C-alpha cells in the first residue's frame, strides 16, 4: 500500500473510532440523565425506578433528622406542591429551610428517596439580584 493510501486508511479508521465513541457517549448521556423537575411536575410525572433531579425550596418546618438520614420536604418556588423525601449523605453548609436546593430523587413505591450525596444547596447571597432599596448610578 502506498503511503498516501496508508494515510487515508489511518484517517478513516481514526474517524470511525471517534464517531463510534461519540455515539456511545451521546446515547448513554440521554439514558443516564435525570430530568430536572419541580415538585408539582414530579408528582405528576414520576415513575417508580427512575431518577429525577428535583429543584425547589426547602419547606419550612419540614427538616427532621431520623438516625443517619435527613427528612425534609421540597416545595415549589411559587407555592403549590410539597414533596417529602428521605435523604442520606452529606448536607451542604448553606442548607436550611427556605433555601433553594437541587437533589436527585428516585420514586420507590409511594416514597421518594434522595440519592446519596446528591444534595446541592444554591448559594443564596453570592450572586443575588439587587436588594429592594433604591439604586442609582452616580
Amino acid at each position: 500500500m502506498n503511503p498516501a493510501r496508508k494515510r487515508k486508511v489511518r484517517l478513516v479508521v481514526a474517524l470511525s473510532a471517534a464517531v463510534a465513541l461519540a455515539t456511545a457517549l451521546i446515547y448513554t448521556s440521554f439514558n443516564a440523565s435525570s430530568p430536572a423537575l419541580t415538585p408539582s411536575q414530579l408528582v405528576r410525572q414520576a415513575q417508580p425506578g427512575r431518577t429525577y433531579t428535583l429543584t425547589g425550596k426547602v419547606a419550612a418546618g419540614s427538616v427532621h433528622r431520623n438516625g443517619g438520614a435527613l427528612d425534609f420536604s421540597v416545595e415549589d418556588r411559587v407555592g403549590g406542591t410539597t414533596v417529602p423525601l428521605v435523604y442520606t449523605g452529606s448536607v451542604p453548609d448553606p442548607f436550611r429551610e427556605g433555601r433553594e436546593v437541587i437533589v436527585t430523587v428516585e420514586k420507590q413505591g409511594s416514597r421518594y428517596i434522595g440519592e446519596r450525596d446528591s444534595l446541592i444547596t444554591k448559594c443564596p447571597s453570592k450572586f443575588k439580584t439587587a436588594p429592594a432599596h433604591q439604586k442609582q448610578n452616580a
Partner: protein
Amino acid sequence: MAGLGFACLLMALLVCVYGIGASLYGVRSGRAEFTASGRRSVYALAGVLTVAFAVLEVAFLRNDFVFNTVADTSSRSTPTFYRAAAVWSSQEGSLLLWAWLLSLWSSLALFLTRRRMRDIASYATAILLGFGGFFIALMVFYANPFATTHPAPAEGAGLDPLLRFPTMMIHPPMLYSGYTLATIPLAFGMGALLSRRVDADWLKAVRRFAFAAWLFLGVGILLGARWSYSELGWGGYWGWDAVENASLMPWLTGTAFLHSLMLQEKRGMLKVWNVSLVLATGTLAIMGTFLVRSGVLNSIHAFGGATLGVPFVTLIGVLIVSRRDMLRSEHRLDSLLSRESIFLANNVVLVGLCFVIFWGTYFPLISAAVTGQESSVGPPWFDRYTVPLALLLVLLSGLGPVIAWRRATLANARRNLLMPVAGALLTLVVLLLAGVPGRPYALAMFSCAGFVLTSLGQEFVRGTRARRAMAGEPAPQALLALVRRNRRRYGGYVVHLGMAVLFIGVAASSSFKHASELSLAPGQSARVGGYEMKYERPTATVTPQFDREHTGSTMALGAEVNVSKDGHHVATLRPSQGYYASGESSAGTVGSLIAGQAVSHISMSGGVTRDLWSAIQPDIGAPVLQRIVSTGNKTLPSEDALVALLYLAREYLKHPPPAQFHFIVSPLVMWIWIGGLIVLGGGLIAIWPAPSTVRRRVLARSRAARGLARA
C-alpha cells in the same frame, strides 16, 4: 468617588471603540501610525481600568457603603484581608477584575510584539479591545460596580462566610488571569488568519501566553479543588460541577496545544489543528467566564450565547476554511513510531476528554433543545468516560519519552520499554501481594503510574550518563546541566512526573476512602478505615468580633475528637460549626446573631499516607438550646444579646446533645497537591528561556557544516 469610577468605565469604553477603529484602519490602509495608536489605546485602557479598580478597592478598604457592591459583600466586621478581596466576590466586581486583567495582559502582549507581526498585532488589538469593550459595556449598562445608594446604609451585609478562606480569595484572580491570558492566543490566532500570515512567528509569540494561561488556569483549578476539600463540608475535591468543568476544559485544550505546537515548529504540521485549538481554548475560556456568572447575567448569557456566540464561531469556521491553502501541512508524519505520533495521540485523547466534559456540562441545554425536557448527568456518567481516557493519557506520557523524534528505531524502542513495563508489572504485583483490594481502575492507574515513573527515571539516568560522557562532570552537576540545556524536554518530563503522582493520589483517594456519617454523644467513638475516632468533649467559643481564623463568626460549637489506631494516639481533631449573624432582625435579638449562614469548619490531619478528615453538625435546634435563644429574644436588647450566647455556650459544654459527625479517611490525598506543585514546577522549568551559549555552539557547528558542504 463612585462618579470617578463610573467615568473611568465610560472613558474605557470610548478608548476601546477608538482603539478598534484605529487598529483596523491602520492595518487596512497600511498606515503604521494608526496601528501604533491602536496599540497605545490598549495601554491607555490598562491605565484607566487600573484607576477604576483602585477606586473600588479603596472603597472596600474604607467601608464606603455608598457603593452597592461594598454594602452587599462587605461589612465593618469583615477582616481587612477579606474586605480587600471581596472586590471580586460580587458579579460587578468580578467583571471589573476580568476587564482589568485583560487590559494588563493585552498591554504586555502588544508591548512584547510591538516591533514584529504588525498586521497580526493590529487585528489582535482590535479583537482584544472588542472583548474588553463587551465586558465594559456589560458593566456600564447592566452590572455597574460603581452603583450607589443614598443615603448609605450604616453597615454592610458582610462577606459570605463560605468565602472567608485565603484559598478562596486568591482563586478568582488566578483563574481570571488564566481566562484572560487564553484570549490573547485567540486574538493573535484570528489575527494570523485574517492577515494570512500563519507561519512560525505568530506561533512563537503566542506560545508564551498560551503557556501562561495554562499555568494560571492550572493553579486556579488546583486552588479550587484544595478549597473544596479542606474548607467545604463535603470532603471532596472534585464534583464535576459546571463551574469546575468550565475551568478544566480550556486547560485541557491548552495542554493539547502546548504539545501540538511542537509538531508545527518541527515539521510544519497541524497548522489547521493548532489554530483551531487556540481558538477553542480562548472560546472555552470566555464561555467559562460566563458559566460561572449567574443571576443577572443569565439573560445576558443566553443573549450572548445565541446572538453573539453562534456568529462568532461561524466566523472562525469561515476564516479557517478560506485560509486553508496557507494552513496546509508542510510535512506529514514520517513514521507511526515517532514522538510526533505519540503527541498526536495525546492531542486526540485530550480533545476527547474535553468533548466528554463539554457534553456533560452543557447537557441540560442540549437535552432541553433536543427533547424539550431539561436533564442533567451526574458524576457517575463523567467518571465512566474520563477515567479510561485519563488512563490512556498517563500511559502515553510514559511512552513518549522512550520514543525518538521523527523516526524511532524499533529495536531501540523495544529495548527502552523493557524497564518501564517491568516497573508497571512490579507495581501491580507488589500491590496485589500487599493486599490492596481489587479495584480494577485504581490498580490500572497505579500500574500506569509505575510505567511512567520508571520510564521518566530511565530518561533522567540516561541523560545524565550521556552528559557525563560528553563533559565529564560529576553526576549532580551533569543532571543540572542536562536540565538547563534541555529545559523543554526535561521540564516536560517533570510535568508528566507530577501528573502521574497526582493521578496516584486521585485513584487512591477515590477508590479506597472510608467514610462514615453518624451521630455521637460525648464518650462515644466510631471506627473508620482502621482508625478509632472518639468524641472526647464538646467545644464552644463566642466571639464578639473576630474568631481565631478571622472569619467573623459570632459563635462556634464543636468537638474535640481523639483519633487513635491500635490504641496509639494519632491525632486530635477539632471540627466545629461557625454561626454568623444575619442582617434580618426577624429571628429576634439573640436569634439573629446566629441565624446567618452556618459554616462548617472542618478539622483535618494531613499525612503522607492518608488524610483524616472530620466535620460536625451540632444540634443547634435542640430544645434546651433553643429555649435560651427565645428567652434571650424576649428579655435582652440587641446590645446585650451576646450574653445569651454565653449562656448557650455554657449550656452546650455542660449538657451537649448528640451531634452529627462526618469522618473520612482518604489515602494519599496529599500526593494530589504535591503532584500539582510538581506539575507547576516542571512547567516553569520548561518555559524558562534557554542560556544563549547553547545557541552559539550550534550556530558555529552549522556554519562549519556549511563551509564543508561548499568546499
